[in-house]
């Protein structure tokens, strides 16, 4: 495999860090300039990331080593197909989110917007760093940057509820980080290296019980961020954050980063072979299935729109992990592709929830009857997103779910096929009533006057994301070759791991 | 280096030490402490370290006792233990 040395990964990272500094020094007074920085940085970042796609698709790996952190471990970025996949997703959605957040924050006339945009840029910095990190140590550094920079975003409203949400967020994630720290230490002590290797590098380095324990601490550590079921509690609580943040948390950066890290560990540290040998894949798969089913049930019980979306997120993230755990070619491809698919669809849904909140200050599903007549474009996009998540054929969600189902058949574990199908049922059950009620129920009196579509800043990203999720469904390789990247990553992993 | 003399001096030193931390009146305690220093100085002279003995005589028994007394006069003589 060719390795190409280039500064591009570092540049892509620096863009958002530098932008964050510009934002900070521009300050509250020159709002337009400040938001210009955000937009500029997001576009530049995306173009740098996108420029690396052709090279990576040719099978090359782009590497950028800065200096040594530990003996044998460098501060190193290495862009492979999997990392670039996530980076593309994150930076693409950042453009949409920043446009949207400008509209949202202005619409609500929120306070401390400088801090908001600053932390937002830094969170993206962290997410991209996670994507590009060439070894666990570098990954952990950015993981923590992401954790910490998201905390002010969660607690942004500064109400006691928001602060409580922030605390919970930190408590869960820092505990997780400590577990990761520990497992990283053990890994280093066992092998003396931390570089990611497609197919894993831990084979034969320790006794079986130790490796099992290590796997558990890794999964529980990163699982907090990926909101696996017993560790998910922070995610619905963090819904107090402003909607762009929720979108960031759920669709773009944070939880996806968690899932990304889980996948990295499962596929690049342990590797399929070791998972098979120790039967860990089955354990992980059951764990994920448990999350899928339970979170579906929880979602049904929610009345708050954003909370329902949150549980839907937990559900879908577990699906991704399930895909990785099944370790069959289609399942891995489907799982990775679902990262992107879910990202586009879920961000649409959150944007809609935010737009409704800005216009009506309503958050509960039961209060939204008939709103579709007032905001047809917005709610139409919502319908598209919801259908996508449920896996309706022409949409992007269908592709990923199709591959996942194929994958579970390939792995000869018919149980998980049922789990996936049940999850589809749950999706329909908790989204369909919203769509139905908003369009076909009678509008309540208080909603009759003055409600209209939100500003262009908000509607444009919504519609764009909705359209994208259709386009990607029709042609999964449109624009940035998501599907190709996913399958290439799969080939790397399975090709060398011998799974 | 006569061990009998040495022993007697050591006993005196011990007595003075115990007395100076048990006496309730701080001023007498300070004075006893001066005496303690003086015996200490004799002891050292007896052991052959004249320079140290000289220093202890001028510092321990002399100046620092004066300091002590001045400080006690500035503060209080009473003590509960």
């Amino acid at each position: 495999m060719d390795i190409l040395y280039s500064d591009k990964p570092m540049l892509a990272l620096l863009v958002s860090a530098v932008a964050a500094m510009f934002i900070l020094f521009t300050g509250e007074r020159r709002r337009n300039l400040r938001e210009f920085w955000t937009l500029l940085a997001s576009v530049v970042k995306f173009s740098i990331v996108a420029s690396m796609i052709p090279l990576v698709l040719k099978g090359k790996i782009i590497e950028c080593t800065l200096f040594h952190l530990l003996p044998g471990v460098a501060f190193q970025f290495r862009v492979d197909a999997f990392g670039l996949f996530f980076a593309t997703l994150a930076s693409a959605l950042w453009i949409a989110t920043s446009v949207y957040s400008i509209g949202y924050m202005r619409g609500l006339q929120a306070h401390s917007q400088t801090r908001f945009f600053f932390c937002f840029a830094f969170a993206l910095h962290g997410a991209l760093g996670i994507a590009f990190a060439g070894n666990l140590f570098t990954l952990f550094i950015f993981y923590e940057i992401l954790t910490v920079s998201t905390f002010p975003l969660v607690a942004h409203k500064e109400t006691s509820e928001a602060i409580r949400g922030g605390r919970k967020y930190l408590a869960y994630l820092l505990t997780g980080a400590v577990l990761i720290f520990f497992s990283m230490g053990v890994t280093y002590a066992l092998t003396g290296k931390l570089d990611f290797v497609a197919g894993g590098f831990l084979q034969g380095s320790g006794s079986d019980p130790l490796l099992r324990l290590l796997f558990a601490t890794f999964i529980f550590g990163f699982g907090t961020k990926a909101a696996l079921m017993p560790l998910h509690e922070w995610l619905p609580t963090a819904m107090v954050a402003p909607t762009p943040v929720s979108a960031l948390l759920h669709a773009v950066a944070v939880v996806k980063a968690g899932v990304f890290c889980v996948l990295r560990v499962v596929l690049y540290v342990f590797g399929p072979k070791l998972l098979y040998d120790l039967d860990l894949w089955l354990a992980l798969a059951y764990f994920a299935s448990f999350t899928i089913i339970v979170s579906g049930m929880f979602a049904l019980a929610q009345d708050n729109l954003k909370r329902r979306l949150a549980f839907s997120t937990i559900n879908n993230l577990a699906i991704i992990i399930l895909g990785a755990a099944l370790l069959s070619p289609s399942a891995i491809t489907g799982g990775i592709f679902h990262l992107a698919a879910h990202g586009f669809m879920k961000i649409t849904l959150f944007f809609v929830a935010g737009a409704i909140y800005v216009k009506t200050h309503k958050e509960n599903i039961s209060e939204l009857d008939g709103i579709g007549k007032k905001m047809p474009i917005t709610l139409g996009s919502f319908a598209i997103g919801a259908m996508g998540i449920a896996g309706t054929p022409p949409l992007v969600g269908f592709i990923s779910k199709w591959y996942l189902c194929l994958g579970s058949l390939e792995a000869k574990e018919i149980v998980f096929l049922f789990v996936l199908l049940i999850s589809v049922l749950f999706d329909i059950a908790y989204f369909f009533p919203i769509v139905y009620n908003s369009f076909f129920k009678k509008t309540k009196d208080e909603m009759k006057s003055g409600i209209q579509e939100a500003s262009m800043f908000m509607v444009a990203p919504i519609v764009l994301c909705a359209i994208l999720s259709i386009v990607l469904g029709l042609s999964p390789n449109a624009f940035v070759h998501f599907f190709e990247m996913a399958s290439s990553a799969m080939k790397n992993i399975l090709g060398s791991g011998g799974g | 280096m006569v061990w009998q003399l040495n022993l007697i001096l050591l006993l005196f030193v011990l007595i003075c030490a115990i007395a100076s931390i048990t006496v309730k009146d701080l001023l007498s305690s300070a004075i006893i402490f001066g005496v303690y220093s003086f015996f200490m100085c004799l002891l050292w002279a007896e052991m052959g370290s004249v320079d140290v003995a000289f220093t202890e005589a001028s510092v321990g028994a002399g100046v620092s006792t004066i300091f002590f007394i001045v400080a006690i006069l500035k503060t209080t003589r009473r003590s509960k233990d």
Partner: protein
Amino acid sequence: MTASPFPILVIVVPLISAFLIILLGWLKKSLCYPFMIASLMATVFFSMAILRWIIHHGTLHYYLGNWDPPWGIEYLIDPLNAFVLVIVSVISLLIGIGSKPMVESDIPRKSIYFYCLFLLQVTGLLGIVVTGDVFNLYVFLEIASLAGYALIAIGEEGAPFASFNYMIYGTIGACFYLLGVGYLYIMTGSLNMADLSKLLPDLYASKVVLMAFAFFVVGVAIKMALFPLHVWLPDAYTYAPSSVTSLLAPLTTKVGAYVLIRIMYGVFKPNFSIEVIPATTILSWMAFFAILFGCVLALGQRDLKRMVAYVLIAEIGYIALGVGLANRNGLLGALLHIMNDALMMACLFLIVGAMTYRGWPRQMERFTGLHRKMPITMAAFVISALSVIGIPPACGFFSKWYLVLGAIDAEQWLFVAVLLISSLLNAILFFRVIEYVYFEPVAKESEVKPSEERTKFMGNEAPLTMLIPIILFALAILSVGLLSGTIISLVIQFALPANF
């Protein structure tokens, strides 16, 4: 090799400056501060020069009065000394710069004497670090301690009593150290560290040597405030003036840690400390409790400065744990933490100083709105807090990483657990403060008397002389962490005691 006069200059320059500053103050008072800064800068220069020399040429010997050791006093500088030397000199320079506003406002008439004692304190610490003679170390220990007692006592309300307590404990510590010196002397007849380490292995069976070792460790542990002997620390460092605390807190404890390492692995051979007596095991258990105790007690504090003081106790525990683990990674972590913790504590206490200087109370409930008034200072606070918690890329993470690795290597899972748990406790501690600073709790807004008191606190950002060191510290915390690999490969790996 005595060609290089740097080892003595690094001590003599601040020493003579301390004497001259008195005369200078007699002529013109306003010259004292620049003079002190100039001499501290010279010290930094010399210590850097020594470090450079050491990296290129190896150990440096300097014979004072040109008497060969063990008859005369010898300065023996190896990478370990040089490393600590640079830390001490750089941090004292920065704190020296930052001390001006506090001195000028609090004790304007006595500023000369303050600067003089400040220099003496620095000299004492530097002297402890460079010397190769156990008794000379005691003398400089006393210079540093005496200056420290006086500097602490000029603080607020409770300071003299706290200082008195410190003095009692400090004297016990110093006397135990001296007793240790005496016990070694009676058995070997030598005072030179290198000489002692040659003579001692034959005597390891002797009870007297064992006692000497115990006295050394206990004495130094008192000086560095290791857990059961830490009693003096919280009060002393809370009531002392902030510029003094920010000098003493990072440095005295770290220098103590240095002495501990020097005694345990330099004067005595590692196999004595590890095998002949289980000193390292005891030490690491003390450290274990220090970490837990420091963090838990810090949770109960509402006063920021006192809280940081308790955190300091826990941090000392980290260093002692690294020393006690007695393997390569543990010691690397301990040495790295000496540097990192010095930076963090200096930064935190200086920030507290800047806050008090601007009239803010130290009660953390009343920090609301602070981030608007002192944005840069508070940004630095966040950085150093993250470092204490151990969040990368701040430097605290890296030393913790080595400590955890060391504990894993030693298969002491309990120590791994306590290191991790303390991270979480620290997170609670510092995020609590950050919440007060950045997120104004709406419910509590009414409790703070709004009009008068808030306007009285109308200080803006910290004065420039404090702000510059704070910013430099914050930047150092970030960069030292990322560069730790380089630092280790350049300096610290040579600073490890032999056989590690």
